[in-house]
């Protein structure tokens, strides 16, 4: 039987990620999809640590660490430098958290996307500044507790719709992925590898210490994020949107929210508001926008 996911491991064991880290599982799958002909650029994020302190490395591909705001630009430079030296094939992947993407890195990200630079930009989104210890980012959803939104009710604003911003740049490929759907994720990276131009992959990466849940539930929460419509899986190729995991009977958002202590202060009204917003977004998405 041919396995549906490549057996090759480009990430080592023995890294220092937290138990149940969604971004770690995602990196493993990403590299299975991309293969070893890949250079990874990392701004400040959890992966600055997880990639290994010098002289160790948890990845079997070259890594270039970059300043926080500069992941996309640094990756563009690597691609240009490789091409100048005659290497047209190596894929360059920027691998950034939500802080480095939604917030401080969005200028360089927008510039690279707008110019259709030939890189893959991945945001592993765990919905806060987790490496510095759970501070709110513009990816933090409404109502989530963080150390910088400690008051009753949590984060006051809805999560920024970054995918809509990226789609407005008319890039050749955008996809969402989450570790519970491993084959879908690996397929999307393998597909992205075959496309030229700016490719954006948004990974929803559950974070046990930041979301405050039992590390054993990472895959379950990842799956529930899709089944509830909180994080729909889709891809947009040259402007055409395709939903990859249809969920005709979506589960109530409470199934996803309640196992996470970051949402423990949500009132029934708050939860109803999140349900309405999720329904609205799902409706828009299923109409192709």
């Amino acid at each position, binding site marked *: 039987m041919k396995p549906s996911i490549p057996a090759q491991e480009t990430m080592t064991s023995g890294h220092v990620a937290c138990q149940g880290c969604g971004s770690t599982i995602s990196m493993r799958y990403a590299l299975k999809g991309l293969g070893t002909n890949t*250079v990874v*650029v990392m701004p400040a994020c959890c992966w*600055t640590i997880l990639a290994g302190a010098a002289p160790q490395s948890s990845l079997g591909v*070259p890594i*270039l660490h970059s300043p926080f*705001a*500069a992941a*996309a630009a640094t990756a563009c430079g690597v691609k240009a430098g490789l091409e100048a030296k005659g290497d047209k094939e190596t894929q360059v992947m920027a691998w950034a958290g939500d802080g480095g993407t939604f917030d401080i890195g969005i200028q*360089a990200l927008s510039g690279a996307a*707008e110019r259709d630079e030939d890189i893959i930009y991945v945001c592993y989104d765990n919905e806060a500044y987790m490496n510095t210890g759970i501070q709110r980012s513009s990816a933090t959803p409404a109502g989530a507790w963080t150390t910088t939104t400690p008051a009753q009710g949590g984060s006051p604003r809805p999560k920024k719709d970054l995918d809509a911003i990226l789609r407005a740049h008319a890039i050749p490929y955008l996809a969402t992925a989450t570790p519970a759907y491993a084959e879908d994720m690996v397929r999307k990276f393998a597909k992205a590898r075959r496309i030229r131009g700016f490719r954006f992959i948004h990974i929803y990466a559950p974070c046990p210490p930041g979301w405050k849940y039992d590390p054993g539930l990472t895959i379950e929460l990842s799956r529930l994020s899709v089944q509830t419509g909180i994080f729909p899986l889709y891809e947009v190729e040259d402007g055409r949107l395709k939903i990859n995991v249809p969920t005709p009977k979506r589960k109530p958002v409470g199934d996803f929210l309640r196992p996470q202590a970051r949402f423990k202060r949500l009132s029934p009204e708050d939860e109803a508001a999140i349900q309405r917003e999720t329904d609205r977004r799902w409706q828009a998405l299923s109409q192709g926008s």
Partner: protein
Amino acid sequence: MRKVLMGNHCAAVAAALAKVDVVSAYPITPQTQSVELLAEMEASGRFKGRFMRVESEHSAMAELLGAATAGARTFTSTSSQGLAYMHELLHWVSGARLPVVMVEVNRALAAPWNLWADQTDSLSQRDTGWMQFYCSDNQEILDTVLLAYRIAEQAAIPAMVVFDGFVLSHTYEAVDVPAQEDVDRFLPPYQPRQQLDVKRPLAFGSLTGPRDYIRLRRRLDGDLRRSIELVERAGREFERIFGRRYGLWEEYRCEDAEALLVASGAPGSTAKEAVDALRARGRRAGLLRLRAFRPFPAEALRRFVKAQTPLAVVDRNCSPGTGGIFFQEIKAALYPHPAPPPVYGFIAGLGGGDITQELLEEIWLEAADKRAEPGAARVEPVWMEDPR
């Protein structure tokens, strides 16, 4: 070939002659024509490298970080606010030991807005671990870009080629543009010591503890000091091929001087006129025109100065609270010294004020005729405001 070029064009022509692989740049006055000309040269096929039009200076330098780590020869140019915006990346690139070369056209920093020449932008990047070379005319700009690549790549330390906004950037002068084959002889292709390579997967810039971090900084500090030798060697080699000599500084009529002007950038060129005029009036004036600010030629300066010859340091820059930056550096270089000369600091021409021949004569006279206290350096700078 003789051509009439503005300073900014000299920078672009030199980058093309250096066969730069990747240019990444963002427009800012008064640097803009250097990247415009490179874009034109790319469009017409005279520049074979990749020209990247980024959305900010921060991204411009980040792209060069990526491209240089991939083994490419890289170039950018900027000024003032753009340089300040790059600041984070300047540390990153020198820490990564990447020989990026950047043209930096001096312009005052806001607030308030000001577009004109002032060295505080480049000098406030003193501690970023970059080499800095100051040019006094357009030929020197072109030549120094070529020299900078050679020195930077040998030292594995990035280099800034600095000149005055408008005074040089927008002024046309006759320039000898060297032949490509001569440049190729002077500047062999860049051979990085390490680079991004999927066949040899290394991690660059990984988290490093104090034990290794201090060693890396010590190595950079030592290599930047020792690059003085590389600067001098490159200057000799340059002279052998092109017939023009560049060292750490230029001495002009210094031998028997009563006092020396110490200047950099375009005023270093005007200062020669001031020296000649003073000599014509029977005063023994001389000039020390500084080129290398990093590496700073402290040891050579200690050997060069004489107790009875005061120095009049002209600074078109200011570190608020402490005065002119060249003034401070020179005083620091002369301590300890068994018999130091008096050192006087003069701040002039901030924000693009003219530093005229007459002003420089006045500065020299001030230093030469106030030599009452040998060995004493003045602490307070003298502010030379434009009386007009």
